[in-house]
């Protein structure tokens, strides 16, 4: 066997084996990668190179947005912003059939627009709405399914830590990616909205829930306004040139902090805990990013991406077919993998292929993140699925059954994102963010 084959087997086999036995993903990814370097360069070179990659992986100013968006999300969840957004969603969707289910969709969309991640959104929205839905006669498995299905939109709608990770490995602009995520993110929410509407027609007993007076609606809106204004601050600040996309994250932190303190919804004594939790979450992600640098290095050094790329291109150079193959591989990977490691592993392999057949890296990022969102709700392992089930206090299995119609409908959404590039590239192009 030649070196390339041995390296590939050590890498893929080693990672799969260690993952299966419950080794932390960072180590499961890093150890076979380091060992592959040992085979190529010996022990000393492997130790030095691996350590250097782990360090350099975090040594990037652009990635600083990740801890800040995580901290801002923590401050908002603890500071009552979540509750105000849900109240507003109740007013917006309150008159619709199956209004509480539609409220779940709307609240997750709003939360997604102020937060960089989506799992916190599923937790916050589900904790408030699941008990109310149960009281109103909803099937608890269905309410968990709606929440799970709707919550990943926050990964697509800016701000988005997932896009920041993609920006790092693809070398594309964060600001452009953020704008590219709006279309697919709204499409995601729209698909969920339609699916709930179809469900509502079959279940006429789930009536509309809230018919607030104009005065009540106005009060709820005003209470949620400062939270919604954060969207304007972040996006407006980036587009006007007051700060960069990375810096916008620290502005979000200051905004959420001041808002929580001024509205007296964020107790000062909670701050250390919120900061510490955000630090730990950051570290979990950053260790993955650092260690994936070892994998990326050994892949480059042994030219594995080029080999895969050449094989794929010798099979076909039709972009539509290549994208279809890649989307299926990513969907399969997403059944068990988290978005961050999946993006870190697959972007260096697939991006050169799709770019060589004329796909725009920004467009590819949008479809990749959309795909990863599907992975977050697909069984057997999906963060949003788990959290939505847990806060609704139901078992996973019945939720999966209720979730599958959403999943298949969202797969059609993936087709749209994949084959209509304008959905993601139109806005950043109009704003001059894409060269």
């Amino acid at each position, binding site marked *: 066997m030649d070196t390339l084959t041995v390296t590939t087997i050590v890498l893929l086999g080693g990672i799969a084996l260690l993952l299966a036995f419950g080794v932390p993903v960072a180590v499961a990814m890093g150890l076979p990668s380091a060992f592959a370097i040992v085979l190529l*360069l010996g022990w*000393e*070179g492997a130790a*030095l*190179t691996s350590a*250097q*990659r782990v360090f*350099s992986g975090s040594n*990037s*100013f*652009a990635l600083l947005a990740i801890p800040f968006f995580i901290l801002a999300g923590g401050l908002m969840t603890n500071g009552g912003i979540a509750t105000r957004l849900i109240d507003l969603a109740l007013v917006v969707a309150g008159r619709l059939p199956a209004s509480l289910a539609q409220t779940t969709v709307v609240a997750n969309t709003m939360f997604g627009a102020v937060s960089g991640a989506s799992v916190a959104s599923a937790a916050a929205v589900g904790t408030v709405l699941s008990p109310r839905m149960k009281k109103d006669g909803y099937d608890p498995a269905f309410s968990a399914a709606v929440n799970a299905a709707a919550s990943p939109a926050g990964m697509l709608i800016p701000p988005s830590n997932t896009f920041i990770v993609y920006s790092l490995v693809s*070398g594309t*602009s*964060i*600001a*452009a990616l953020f704008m590219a995520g709006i279309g697919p993110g709204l499409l995601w929410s729209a698909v969920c909205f339609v699916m709930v509407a179809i469900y509502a027609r079959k279940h006429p007993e789930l009536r509309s829930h809230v018919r607030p007076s104009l005065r009540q609606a106005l009060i709820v809106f005003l209470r949620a306004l400062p939270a919604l204004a954060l969207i304007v601050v972040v996006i407006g600040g*980036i*587009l*006007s*040139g*007051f*700060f*960069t*996309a*990375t810096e916008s994250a620290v502005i979000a932190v200051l905004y959420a902090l001041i808002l929580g303190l001024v509205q007296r919804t964020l107790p000062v004594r909670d701050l250390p805990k919120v900061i510490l939790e955000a630090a730990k979450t950051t570290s979990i992600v950053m260790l993955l990013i650092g260690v994936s640098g070892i994998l990326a*290095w050994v892949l*480059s*050094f042994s030219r594995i991406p080029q080999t895969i790329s050449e094989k794929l291109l010798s099979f076909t150079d039709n972009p539509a077919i290549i994208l279809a193959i890649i989307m299926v591989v990513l969907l399969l990977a997403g059944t068990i993998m988290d978005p961050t490691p999946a993006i870190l592993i697959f972007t260096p392999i697939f991006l050169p292929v799709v770019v060589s057949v004329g796909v725009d890296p920004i467009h590819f990022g949008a479809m990749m993140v959309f795909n990863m969102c599907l992975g977050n709700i697909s069984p057997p392992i999906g963060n949003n699925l788990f959290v939505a089930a847990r806060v609704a206090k139901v078992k996973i299995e019945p939720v999966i059954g209720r979730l599958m119609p959403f999943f298949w409908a969202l797969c059609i959404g993936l087709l749209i994102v994949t084959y209509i590039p304008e959905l993601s590239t139109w806005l950043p192009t109009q704003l*001059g*963010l894409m*060269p």
Partner: protein
Amino acid sequence: GSSTAEGQAAGGETTTLQLALNQTEEHPSYISLDAFGDRLVKSTDGRFDIEVFPNEQLGAQADTLQLVSDGVVDMAIVSGAQLENLSKDFIAFNLPTVFDSVEHQMSVVNNPEITGDLYSSLAESNSVSVVGGLTQGARSIYTKTAPAETPADLAGQKIRVQESELFLALVEAIGASPTPMAFGEVYTALQSGVIDGAENNEVSYFTQKHHEVAPFFSYTNHLIGLDYLIINSNTLEGMSDEDRAAFDEEWTGTYEQHTTLWGEATDDAIAGATAAGATFTEVDSDAFTEALEPLVDQFLTEPSQKKLYDAAREASTK
């Protein structure tokens, strides 16, 4: 080089030298170094080949310098600023005013009589030998709103610089406000107005499409950029005299080809950017030189540095 099969056909083992590069496959550096490998295979009867890894695949320059020092990677292209970290003498060739032109620069940095001691000075301490230099062209300032004919035109403007003491001092000396920022963020930052301008050579200006968002390129020529080809000393010493001679000769062909390609790329960049609406403006170069001259004394603190600087100036034909 991709001619490994050719080399093996000549019989015997081929030693493939891995070369880490921070530029893309279209860049003059990649093209000339790839051709370096192709010629080396032929002139060493297949005993040596070079495989170039572009796009920072093996790490940023600071990282690949370490990898070469440790023998993980055989060769790398690193900037003068990176080598300054190992020996302060390298700063002599990184300063403004040291070179008049690319031709002057190439005649100095590839002249063993001037550079011999400098290029071998890291062999014992760091196992790194410098093969020679590749120009990265004269650097100038480009801005969003108006050309800068004198330093006064730049007063208070936020100019993006790489994170380096020298560049910070340089932009400050011109009277602008230096703003360190990652290279990948510059396009968006210029577009949205986070910064007012940046500084680079014409080639990067055009290939990074910065001309779309900062159309005023002013020929400040404040510094002529320089990259070095470095090689692990043990690898170099492991070559037979015959192979070493072939290596040196093909290197001469490499930097000559690179200089030609660089000139062509610069012309293409100017033509492309002009066609897209950018303007290239001559500046009051005496005014800029006057502002920059104090930097030479500020940064040349050792007699050994001063000696290299003076040797370079003496080679000037101006």
